[in-house]
């Protein structure tokens, strides 16, 4: 539904030029919820704005449905008002001089063919009830609460049945509790309408809970793309592992490799000793790698156990924080500090000696 090929865009500032997008290609299938995730300045918003037509890229091609809306090679640029898209902005961009009704009706007034007055009214009402704002149509827009404004923005973006829905960090201005509610609600509305959605966020939790596909961006390029569970469980780069969820990163060097592509195993020499890990396809013997293991995957084992068990290390608890559903610890092991999340029943204190197991299936070796 949305197809981007080799998108490049440079901002010409007053003092410097900044290359915001450096060759992004992606495909969003019809009806999918596709998320661009990354830290600020990674080019995710610029990519979205290029799809909307609010920025004019230097190079590349963007197709929405079967229409090429931008092509540098063929000198095509369809202005935003002819792209038939819906967009929710970070600031909501609710027009303060209009009522709720007028805000939602606005896209319909510019739709071709223009719906009749009664049809317009009916569609506005349907959009209002979709976001559970029934009865508020005559309220001046500035008199809505933050959450209501957000819903109004969603209703306005969807009322004209756009080909695609673009969401530019729509939840970032809400307080934490409201954000949790809206996350689910937004996902539900999008699912019900089966509208193709491109979503931009820097919040990993939003990306993980809402998306069909996540593309992690860094410095103007997509570094990894996949389903939320895959991105979380199988990051291919230290950056992705670190950006999504908390992770331990242990530097080391590959001393041996086994198995074929897709199921490679590596022995990695680290400050903690030799660790057995799953390995990225690109990893070669003798290479410097980072071994990542998520805090919740580190397990406590009996200190009294005899013999050397694979991937077990011994360390000293430095700090513990009780979080109710878990015990968050920092354990010093061989000069490294491991972040470990344990079951709250593991009553550990500062200075306790612990033996930890780093399960092979959860240790990932990737190029640094």
């Amino acid at each position, binding site marked *: 539904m949305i197809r981007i090929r080799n998108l490049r865009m440079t901002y010409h500032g007053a003092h410097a030029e900044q290359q915001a997008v450096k060759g992004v290609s992606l495909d969003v299938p019809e009806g999918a919820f596709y998320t661009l995730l990354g830290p600020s300045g990674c080019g995710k918003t610029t990519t979205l704005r290029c799809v909307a037509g609010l920025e004019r890229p230097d190079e590349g091609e963007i197709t929405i449905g079967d229409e090429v809306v931008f092509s540098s090679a063929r000198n095509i640029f369809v202005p935003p008002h002819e792209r038939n898209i819906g*967009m929710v902005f970070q*600031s909501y*961009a609710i027009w303060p001089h209009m009522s709720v009704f007028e805000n939602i009706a606005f896209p319909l007034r510019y739709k071709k063919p223009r719906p009749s007055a009664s049809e317009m009214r009916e569609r506005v009402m349907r959009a209002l009830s979709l976001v559970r704002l029934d009865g508020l149509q005559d309220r001046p827009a500035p008199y809505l609460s933050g959450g209501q404004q957000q819903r109004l923005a969603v209703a306005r*973006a969807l009322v*004209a049945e756009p080909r695609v829905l673009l969401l530019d960090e729509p939840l970032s201005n809400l307080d934490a509790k409201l954000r949790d509610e809206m996350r689910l609600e937004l996902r539900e509305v999008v699912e019900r309408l089966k509208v193709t959605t491109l979503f931009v966020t820097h919040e990993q939790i939003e990306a993980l809970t809402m998306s069909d596909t996540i593309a992690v961006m860094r410095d103007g390029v997509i570094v990894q793309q996949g389903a939320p569970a895959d991105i979380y469980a199988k990051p291919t780069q230290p950056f992705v592992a670190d950006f999504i969820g908390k992770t331990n990163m242990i530097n080391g060097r590959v001393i041996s490799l086994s198995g074929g592509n897709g199921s490679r195993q590596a022995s990695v020499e680290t400050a903690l000793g030799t660790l057995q890990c799953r390995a990225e396809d690109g990893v070669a013997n003798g290479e410097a790698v980072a071994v990542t293991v998520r805090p919740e995957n580190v397990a406590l084992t009996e200190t009294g156990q005899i013999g050397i068990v694979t991937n077990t290390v011994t360390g000293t608890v430095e700090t513990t924080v009780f979080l109710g559903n878990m015990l968050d610890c920092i354990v010093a092991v061989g000069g490294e500090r491991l972040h470990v999340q344990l079951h709250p029943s593991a009553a550990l204190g500062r200075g306790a000696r612990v033996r930890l197991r780093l399960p092979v299936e959860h240790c990932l070796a990737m190029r640094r």
Partner: protein
Amino acid sequence: MTALPVTLDITRPVRWNIDVARVFAISIAVLACLAVAVLLVTILWLSFTDGTPGDPQLGYTLGHYREIFIDSFTYRVLWNTALFLVITLIVAFALALPMAWLVERTDFPGKPIVFTLMTVALLIPGFAVALGWLFLLHPRIGLINQAVMALFGLSAAPFNIATIVGMGIVEGLSLTPITFIMTSVVLRSMDPSLEEAAAMSGAKPWQAVVRVTLRVLWPGLLAAAIYVSAICFAAFDVPAILGLTNRIYTFSTYVFRQLTPTEGPPEYGGVATLSMIMLVIAIAMSWAYRVVQRQAPRYAVVTGKAYRPRIHALGPAKAPAIVFVVLFFLVSQALPLVMLGWAAALPYLQTPSVEALAQLSLGNFRSIPTELLVRSITNTAILMVTVPTITMAASLAISWVILRAGTRGAAVLDFFAFLPVTVPPIVFSVAALLLALFVLRGVAPIYGTIWILILVYAIARMSYGTRMTNSALIQVHRELDEAAQVSGAGTFGVFRAVLLPLLAPTVLYAWIWIALLSFRELTLPVVLATGSNLPFSMLVWSYAQSSSYGRASAAALIMLALMAPILLLYWLVARRVGILTPR
């Protein structure tokens, strides 16, 4: 939606998107800025030439600059101007600063009234007030002089308003409102915790004021002083009414005298050169203002933090404070205007007496030819409608291009749009006159028509207009435009449906303000108005210049009467926009 292969699109013609609204806006903006540039280039060019309008061959020369710099009279005028400026500043700050402090930092009663009166005083034409002072303190006809001479049997008048000191005092009184407004902004933006900290450190209140408040406010006050100096340097009406007939010149009246010499034809090249010198000085002042103003934030007094300045209780000092403020308005505004009424009602100016009262009549009002009255009021009405409309349309276009269109060279537009505020009005009118006489005479004969006034008025107000629309547009979040764009509105649609309604209050406010300024404008028409395009303010001027003071006063009073309803409208709009409320 059928999924056609994307490659089929190759058969579609290449799309050329010409955004008509965008091209239109850019054209207007560029044209407006070009007009400013053309005017200034004209005087620069003519300052190096020798000849008269229509001369097929203009010779190039540095002679005008040489002559002006050799002429000792030039230095005399410069000295006069400097003295005039210093006296004005002293008077304006001595009055404005205490009043601003009273209104901003004490429990002075009726603050909104003071603000409203200050705004009204800002708009009362300086030449009307200057006329009133002439009637009070003119060495020959001044009533106070006559009374004091009669009382003490003096043979010479004790006071003379027609001096640099007199002109400075009157100008200072008339610039007090703007000084008040600028200094009250400075006082308002000061974080009171700085004073409180000084008090905690054991400083007595007056020590806190001297050691902390004044030091912290210094950059802001200095910026205000430079700003007021620039206005004073460019001021024409007060020095012209008071000094021109006595041959006491400040720079702007000197330029005018050179342009309309009492004998012989004007030397246009010389006038252009004087205008250039004036322009350079004015630009230097405006540059100094920008430098000082930019340094002010270094003190980081103006934080975004919401605070209420500490309000001092006046206590027993309240009554004297009220008397001070009331006296200011009475002496600076009411007294001269009452004098206008007195002079207008009498066949000739005389001290109040039973005989004088017996002579009161409307004769002066009746003696103004109806045709002249109608013509000049019509011209002023045309100016008051067209000038703000053109200015605000151009300002909207310029602001949109600078802030929204994302075109390169927006900074150049911004510079030219800001330039008019720097240029003294007399320089503008000289430039327009020379342009019309030397360049446009064959192409577009606008000299002598209302058009030349409309264009010059509009250009002169452009920096005010763009500053208003710029600050209003900056406050409109860009995503509001973008939301309309993705909703299907084109450039014009976004402007009409989103920007215009949101900017409307500011545009309306600025429109009325410019209309009021156009109403009271004297400096621009004094050079450019001929006969058929005479605006009403010129009526007062012409009568005053021919010493028909009774009729000049009558005309000035008619002018003020006509202004009253527009002032009321302004007040209503300003209150709605929230500009008159102190905070």
